């Protein structure tokens, strides 16, 4: 059995190593052109790097500052139905980035619900969108951490007569401070690698980050040398930040997937305030988006069916690839080596656009750019989704392994029966969830498709982006409602299947 597991593990690892190697090769063999190397290191590049870091730090700080009070209030006592709020926070994190962007524009842009002193395009819009995207995530992680305060410590605090303020000072603040570091690093990294938000809300060359610079170099200037340089710089900066700040903040959706234990009582008044405040903050962009969509009759562009087909096709294939890849990464058997841990780490932290750039440059070099569009988009989307679904699958497979590995060995069960009879029934309840999550992530992706796709290649997010570019905001909002409905249906389907499975047992 171990040998079979090892083979499957090696197959998955081999594909990941091959991807990293091919991306690196693409960087080295990039199809020439461009200017002298020294000419790229100008004041513009310095400004791009500065802006990449500056907006990321600012976005992470704002998200965290806002998340603190919400997480603190929510964690005071477990309340009935808190899983629903937790599920909503998880959902808000994985919905298409472009939906938030469009929501922010509908809310704060021209003819929006709220009038900003200046324009929404530029740093204000970028910060608003990043906060809307990351606030639920930060709140969820901090809430989860604070909920782990042991009951005996809470009892002790009560015995000692600590009120809210003292409990915060002695019990909760040390935990918040400890958890905030990793969460900050994580959000800063996500914002550092932000593409869609900066591209759509940046509002001009003054507000460009490295990812957008790669895109512009490849798509507008046809300068592959510049694209390679920016991508390498981007990857190097991200890795340096993680190396300097530690791996503690790495994305661990296991916490986010775990349903917190609910309490018997309803939320306290303080918790009601937090819940309503959070919902108002997070739902208002979507409400504004829906309002914008309903302002005119629904007219569908001729390319919509084509875009839908392409998006769904990519979502189906990439989610299957992501799940298979994740399964191969969590099969027990061989002792996990340092190299294997580095591989998982590498896939998690190397920005997808850097990988995409490397692979795309290689395809350009080989003259396969058009043929490779689909496989490239599917594969990179699968790689992006894989770390998010890995932990729940891994937790189940490892639990099954530790409980049953002796039994499977004494019964002489080989790889296939073990996969079929032991692991599969245990991962099946999360399998549809994993497929749906990966599919939703792929459906919402714009960056990879924008970079790799040719002029005639269109996905639903790309079509929406094109409508935004031609100031057809209502049409964009209407198509976004379609995309959101698709994502929501997929996630509901996964929840329904999970519920049905539980009921059937």
């Amino acid at each position, binding site marked *: 059995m171990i040998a079979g597991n090892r083979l499957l593990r090696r197959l998955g690892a081999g594909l990941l190593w091959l991807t990293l190697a091919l991306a690196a090769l693409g960087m080295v063999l990039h199809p020439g052109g461009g200017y002298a190397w020294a000419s790229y290191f100008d004041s513009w590049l310095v400004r791009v790097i500065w802006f990449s870091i500056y907006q990321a730090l600012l976005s992470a700080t704002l998200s965290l500052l806002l998340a603190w009070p919400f997480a603190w209030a929510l964690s005071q006592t477990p309340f009935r139905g808190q899983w629903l709020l937790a599920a909503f926070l998880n959902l808000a994190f994985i919905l298409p980035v472009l939906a938030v962007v469009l929501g922010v524009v509908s809310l704060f842009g021209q003819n929006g619900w709220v009038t900003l002193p200046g324009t929404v395009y530029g740093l204000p819009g970028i910060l608003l969108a990043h906060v809307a995207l990351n606030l639920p995530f930060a709140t969820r992680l901090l809430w989860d951490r604070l909920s782990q305060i042991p009951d005996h410590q809470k009892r002790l605090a009560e015995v000692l007569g600590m009120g809210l303020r003292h409990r915060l000072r002695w019990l909760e603040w040390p935990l918040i401070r400890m958890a905030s570091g990793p969460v900050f690093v994580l959000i800063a990294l996500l914002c550092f690698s932000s593409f869609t938000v900066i591209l759509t809300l940046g509002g001009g060359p003054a507000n460009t980050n490295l990812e957008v610079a790669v895109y512009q170099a490849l798509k507008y200037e046809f300068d592959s040398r510049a694209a390679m340089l920016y991508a390498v710089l981007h990857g190097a900066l991200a890795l340096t930040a993680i190396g300097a700040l530690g791996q503690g903040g790495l994305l661990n959706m296991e916490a986010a997937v775990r349903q917190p234990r609910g309490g018997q009582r309803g939320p306290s008044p303080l918790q009601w305030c937090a819940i309503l405040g959070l919902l108002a903050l997070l739902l208002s962009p979507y409400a504004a988006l829906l309002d914008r969509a309903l302002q005119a009759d629904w007219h569908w562009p001729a390319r919509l069916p084509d875009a839908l087909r392409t998006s769904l096709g990519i979502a189906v294939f990439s989610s299957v690839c992501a799940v298979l890849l994740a399964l191969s990464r969590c099969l027990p058997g061989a002792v996990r080596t340092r190299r294997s841990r580095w591989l998982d780490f590498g896939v998690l932290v190397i920005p997808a656009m850097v990988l995409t750039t490397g692979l795309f440059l290689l395809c350009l070099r080989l003259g396969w750019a058009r043929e490779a569009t689909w496989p490239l988009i599917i594969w990179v989307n699968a790689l992006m989704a894989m770390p998010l679904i890995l932990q729940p699958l891994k937790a189940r497979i490892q639990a099954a392994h530790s*409980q049953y590995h002796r*039994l499977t*060995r*004494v019964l*002489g069960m*080989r790889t*296939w*029966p073990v996969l079929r009879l032991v692991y599969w029934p*245990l991962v099946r309840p999360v399998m549809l969830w994993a497929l749906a999550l990966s599919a939703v992530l792929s459906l919402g992706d714009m960056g990879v498709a924008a970079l790799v796709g040719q002029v005639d290649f269109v996905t639903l997010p790309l079509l929406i982006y094109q409508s935004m570019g031609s100031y057809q905001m209502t049409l964009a909002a209407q198509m976004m409602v379609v995309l959101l409905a698709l994502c929501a249906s997929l996630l509901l389907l996964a929840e329904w299947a999970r519920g049905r499975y539980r009921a059937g047992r």
Partner: protein
Amino acid sequence: MLDVRQLTTQLGDQDFHWEFKLAAGDLMAIVGASGLGKSTLLNVLCGLLPATAGEVRWQGRDVLDQPLHRRPFGILFQSHNLFEHLSVEVNLALGIHPSGRLHEADRERVLTAARRFDIANLLDRTPDRLSGGQQQRAALARVFLQRKPVLLLDEPFSSLDPALRQEGLNWVRDMQAEQGSTVLLVTHHLDEMLPVTDQVLLGLTSEQWLSLSTDEFERQRAQGAFQSLLGIDTDASY
């Protein structure tokens, strides 16, 4: 005859060493303080842990070079003897073929074993919907279907109440009578087991084990021997 000669293994920095013989069809109780290697012995015999030296012969043939599932041993652990998410029927089927896929004749065998252990009406249930006693019978039925000549029982009934423990032991005795099984049983309830035991393997240290016939053991114990050894954690498994 089960012939264990200078069988040795090492776990961390602790060495274990066993030597004994057991006639085919006999039942041997393995007793001693915690940490001396009672469960380790069963794990080495069945192949879950490697032996570093020595021989284990069953009916004259060395079994240590055989793969785990070809050895003549069926084993029941303290817990996790059944796959909790699979039906009792599939759990039993795995005793016949490790793929879990059965022919019609095999299905008949599963049903016969289920009837034999009084669980025929529970075949479609998962183990979490069975009582402790029913789970114990399902695990025994699977071992029964494996038709292994030697049963290694690593306190499989220790978490049950005395009545169910006695019932479990009776089922083992029935199997022994029917299949002629040889049984090695780790126990902390020696007094309950002695009436049905032919031989006792008593751990003095992890490297020193005393193998005695039950009569000899009782005679020596009546004279005051082993008190300090058997006094240790007699109730530990509760």
